[in-house]
């Protein structure tokens, strides 16, 4: 039984780590600030969520479980609020999102900073 739980929790931890890594790679790969936010939200949601779920299975029934749940809840709420605040601040200070038209994909237009 313990072995089964261990395997399940390690599956969660490894998948979570994969999504964190994917988020980091996306952060480097995507072309502009606004698309990078999407990559960062990978780490925020499934990355953190799966790792915390894995840890919850490791922790078992006890006081640690609700604490981990609280961390998950707060990171979901704080992550979205921070993303929105950053995106809005960037928009307000004049950073234009890079938009690709369907007809002329890869227009090569660089986002202008002012």
């Amino acid at each position, binding site marked *: 039984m313990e072995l089964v739980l261990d395997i399940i929790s390690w599956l969660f931890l490894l998948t979570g780590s994969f*999504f964190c890594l*994917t*988020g980091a*790679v*996306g952060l480097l*790969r*995507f*072309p*502009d600030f*606004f*698309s990078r*936010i*999407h*990559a960062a*939200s*990978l780490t925020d*949601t*499934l990355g953190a969520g799966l790792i915390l779920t894995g840890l919850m299975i490791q922790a078992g029934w006890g*006081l640690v479980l*609700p*604490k981990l749940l*609280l961390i998950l809840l707060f990171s*979901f*709420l704080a*992550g*979205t*609020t921070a*993303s*929105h605040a950053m*995106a*809005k601040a*960037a*928009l307000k200070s004049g950073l234009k*999102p*890079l*938009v*690709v038209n*369907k007809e002329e*994909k*890869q227009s090569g237009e660089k986002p202008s900073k002012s």
Partner: protein
Amino acid sequence: MRHKLALSTLLSVFWLINSGHYTPLILFFMVVSTAFVLWLCHKMNIIDDEAQPLQLTFTIPGYWVWLIKEVVVANIAVARCVWQGRASISPSVFPVKANQKSDIGKVIYANSITLTPGTVSIDFKDDEITVHALTSDSAADLQSGEMDRRVCRVEG
């Protein structure tokens, strides 16, 4: 009264979870600090439907389940875009209408948009949210309006 009861219960439970020590002295501190925070909230006049949205108690768990499913699906889609590289994304910016009646409903909608990878709400005026979407698929998902309808239903 309902809100005060809910807030003090929530604060006590929060304390009990985080403390782990259940001796009489520590429990006495719990009562004192809960009463203090309750008094502060009363002074700040923030004990209302917005800070303690009790009206959502029974409608929101179902929405959470649906939202988690959406977040997982969107995560996989964005992860695919990351590994496929720049050619697979087509960022766009467009407005969506928030049909919710209350402010808290609109906040839930905007926050859900941001929580779902692939879409971020970047501006909010009156009842129009400006959304930045990573791919045309994620944009189409949002424009179908299903999330909007579900949040409206949560509001009751």
